[in-house]
């Protein structure tokens, strides 16, 4: 019999509420796994990612990160470990390099051009560092946003359904890049999607969210 002790979980949520938008009864994420949250748009999936990223607080209940209440962890310290890639990421003007400058500035990191070029290559974004972000396609912008997030080296990546702004192939490419990165670097990933295919293909665990309700293990796919 497998015994799961509380410490196994990177994220552990039980009985939280966010206004009338979302109710999560039971949701756990283990270290170094890929967890998919499947549900229709407007079902509260993005809200859950925002809660886990500590962009907003639950109106009821607590969220545990490595067994510690996230509202008691210093926010900046917490966000260093947890990174969210939004559906349509915002890119800073003007160039690709300017985007890394921002992350380095926010996190007191050194600007390592070799590392940046390597990261860009790893997602097949073969553009010079002074390339203007305004000229990037939707998929390229998403990939830049991904490596920009990876540059700060978070333990947990939250990926919010890139498909809503991209075509199917570009979406798959992004997800494949993220999954590859997660596996190669022993990280943890939560993907929000409306697609069962994505869940079946990539996830270790899948949860269903319906009309703002996530009922946990009973709803395991």
């Amino acid at each position, binding site marked *: 019999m497998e015994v799961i002790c509380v410490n196994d979980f990177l994220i552990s949520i039980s009985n939280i509420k966010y206004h009338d938008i979302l109710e999560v009864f039971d949701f756990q994420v283990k270290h170094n796994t890929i967890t998919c949250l499947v549900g229709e748009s407007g079902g509260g999936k993005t809200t859950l990612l925002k809660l886990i990223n500590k962009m907003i607080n639950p109106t009821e209940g607590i969220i545990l990160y490595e067994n510690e209440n996230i509202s008691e962890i210093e926010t900046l310290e917490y966000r260093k470990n947890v990174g969210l890639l939004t559906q349509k*990421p915002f890119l800073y003007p003007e160039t690709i390099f300017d985007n890394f400058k921002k992350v380095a500035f926010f996190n007191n990191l050194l600007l390592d051009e070799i590392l940046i070029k390597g990261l860009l290559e790893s997602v097949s974004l073969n553009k010079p560092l002074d390339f203007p972000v305004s000229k990037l396609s939707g998929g390229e912008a998403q990939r830049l946003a991904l490596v920009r997030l990876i540059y700060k080296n978070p333990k947990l990546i939250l990926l919010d359904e890139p498909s809503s702004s991209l075509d199917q192939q570009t979406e798959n490419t992004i997800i494949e890049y993220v999954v590859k990165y997660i596996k190669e670097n022993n990280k943890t990933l939560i993907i929000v999607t409306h697609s069962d295919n994505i869940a079946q293909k990539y996830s270790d665990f899948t949860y269903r969210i319906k009309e703002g309700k996530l009922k946990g293990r009973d709803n395991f796919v």
Partner: protein
Amino acid sequence: MIILFNSILNLSYWQLALAYTFVLIVLVLIKSIGIAKEKELLISSIRMTVQLIIVGFILTYIFNYPNFFITSFILLLMVFFAIHTIFKKFKGKLSYKLKKVITIAFTLGVFPVIFFFIFVVIQVKPLYNPQYVIPISGMIIGNSMTGITLGLNTMVKRFTLNVEEIETSLILGATPRQASKDIINDAFDNAITPTINSMLGMGIIFLPGMMTGQILSGTIPTTSIMYQIAIMLGILGGVGIVTYLCLVLGYKTYFNSQKQLIYDSVSK
């Protein structure tokens, strides 16, 4: 021929009455264009006249009988009305927290500038001499009010329109201050630019009001430029300090203690 600078041409009542010819001319122009502004023009002309007559009498009395308490009271009244005007002039809704910030920033910023200017730079004697304190404070307060309004409009507009950018910065590990940096810079730039531009154009494109007034009342231009330079620098200080305080305290009203954006404060 030598012209004496100190000769003052006093305007007689009928000379002043002749100036109202311009009101009549503009009235005719307004009528011929066909915009419904006649009533507004008449009211504003009458209001200006009545207000200035009253102020003229009050100031004459106050200048003749300088009193510490009256000067202080007028100073406080000017600051109160300036803050009230900032609230009124603001396009949109100001939160209670932001109103508090404006009041604190304006009061904390404008009084030290006025005191420094009057007591240290000009060294007025007695210190509460209303002939100096009132007009100089008026100029510093008035310009600071315009500056803070411009800065505030930019800040509030940018916070409402740039939620995505702020969210992204927070996600990427920025402190609220770092996430608001571009907004604060932009707002400060918008607030201070008119003052800097007017310094650039001064003496070439236009003669500033205070200097013109002093020259008309008989002061030699070399003295009046000294005052003008000093007051311009005082205004620069007032606008700069008041706006800076308002912005560095104001951005905090958009975030909570957990470094989260307060979404209610940026809803359109």
